[in-house]
């Protein structure tokens, strides 16, 4: 076995992870799930499944039909925000659980 630095891994047993690691992993999955719900809603929801009813509305201040805008512009912008949000939240979680690098 090589040296292990992490407090989490020190207490990890063969049967799985230690409680702290479990909590970190649970929080991580929750963050992912929340962001993936948004991911699904803006693309598959607004851009595909509900595109027809949304197209009856217009994006305020422009002439974009709303569903079309989500499919071609809005979802892409939302994706960018999601990935940065994930990076930000996870860095915070890492520090909170004391598992960030260095």
């Amino acid at each position, binding site marked *: 076995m090589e040296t292990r630095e992490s407090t989490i891994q020190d207490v990890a047993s*063969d049967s799985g992870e230690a409680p702290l690691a479990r909590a970190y992993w649970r929080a991580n999955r929750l963050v992912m799930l929340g962001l993936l719900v948004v991911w699904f809603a803006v693309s598959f929801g607004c851009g595909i499944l509900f595109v027809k009813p949304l197209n009856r509305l217009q994006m305020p201040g*422009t002439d974009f039909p709303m569903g*079309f805008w989500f499919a071609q512009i809005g979802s*892409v912008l939302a994706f*960018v925000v999601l*990935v940065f949000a*994930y*990076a930000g939240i*996870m860095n915070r979680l890492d520090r909170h659980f004391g598992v960030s690098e260095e």
Partner: protein
Amino acid sequence: MDVKAWTFVFAGLSFGLYIAIAIWSRARSTKDFYVAGGGVSPLANGMATASDWMSAASFLSMAGMLSFLGYDGSVYLMGATGGFVLLALLLAPYLRKFGRFTVPDFVGERYDSKSARLVAVVCALFISLTYVSGQMRGVGVVFSRFLEVPVETGVVLGMAIVLLYAVLGGMKGITYTQVAQYCILIFAFLVPAIFLSILMTGNPVPQLGFGGMLQGEIGTRIAGGEAISLLAKLNQLHADLGFAPYTSGSKATIDVFAITLALMVGTAGLPHVIVRFYTVRRVRDARLSAGLALLFIAVLYTAAPAIGAFSRVHLLDSVAGARYAAPAASEDSVKAVPEWFRAWEDIGLIAWVDKNADGVIDYRPGRAFGGGTPSFVAPPTDGAGRGAHGERIVANPILEGPNELYVDFDIMVLATPEIAGLPDWVIALVAAGGLAAALSTAAGLLLVISTAISHDLLKRTFLPRISDRQELLAARLAAAGAVCLAGYLGIRPPGFVAEVVAFAFGLAASSFFPVLFLGIFTRRMNRQGAIAGMATGFLFTAGYIVHFKLLDPAANNAAHWWFGISPEGIGVVGMLLHFVVALTVAYLTPPPPAHVQEIVTSIRVPRGATPARHRH
């Protein structure tokens, strides 16, 4: 200077830059060659990932596809960018923590199995080879259009450049040339987009002008005194000519859903994109560089639909109903086709068949002639191959419908500057951007091919005793071999290449994404499940595609598709099958050994070392 001279200047300068970077960033160890030493900054990795991912197809074809498909083209936008969300949230940080060299590396060690590694190598090679030949072809097309050299010469030149920096520098050389290539390609894409947006909508931001009123020099003329928005005008032009509305789709919702999901998951599973995340130092750098990469990609991917709509309006306005023959001086008011129309016809990417012999271009839905791309009876210089109005005569079987016009998707981006009447240097800049997009993706793919051979096949499977120096030599030789093979495929594309490039995504979605995801998110997944899953996903997806695209193309329509899903979207079903088979097999067979479970525990937290390999 004319376009050709400017193109020589820009292509020459950019190639010189790539060579300089290649010499500066020579690889000295396998770690340099495989992962650029592992210390790339998130910003550089973000740019490199963006140009790695954005291929000749993104740069040259996508705006054109959007232009012709309207809303239905959205699948490509959402598919490509949405995949980065999956990659950033579900794979990149964990693979970075795992921290090896290749994707098969992860599969081989996580599942503790040489067979699983070999299955992964086969998938990686197949995906990358189909994809790379398309890039080489893109290089050839740009050269032949702008420098008027044969496609073959263009491909060979492109090969020579990639060979130099990929073989010398490996991932290190590729990374820093990709950074330069991103800067070139995004500048080249945005300059004409901004000009066009100003000319058509009076708004310098294409993403906003796209949803605005028709204003500006060209826009006012097209609007004809009416206050009308660009999209409303576009739908109106579509309705006049009998096309479906631009802003709503004509494909079945289930197929749009499946294609989008297949492209997203496929993007997340493309090995040449995944390995880019091995090159940064820390897990948090992987997360950040995924965000930056997507931001850099989004700049192009939100401008593309704007270019698509601008060029569509312009095409319909200037070409539909125009006379082919140049009008005599006495009839100034007659609408004649623009000059670029003939230039592209000479190259064979536009064709017109005067079915009703009225000398006017009737552009309507449906295909003008059968047999796909036009084949002409004589070269453009030969007067014998010209029809009554001077148009080139095609040899294809003429179809019944009212449409007389064929326009290749790929010309929309390349023709944009000409459409907008921009100076020659802008046209040349776009050519250099297209080359940068094609070369950057080709290099990333070649690296996957060479590392799969030198690292996964030789070092980790068949010749474990070779030294680092020998492995590096093998990697360089494999890269050189892969470049030559890619060049050959680019010059002599087997008939099916164009058909299968899109399926690289389906195969990545059905073979790689699930095996990586399950390896991270389920501790219980074992080698039996992984191998069975990969094989099922790959064989099912490949079988469906081969059946509909190669064996029985006549049946390739919604009536015969399973669940109404086209071959482009079938990767989703392959992926679901992969999940079901892998999980079922895994739970019927013994759990993976303790040291493998330890790997899973360790990759889930950023801190700490990943357990060393070969613990058994």
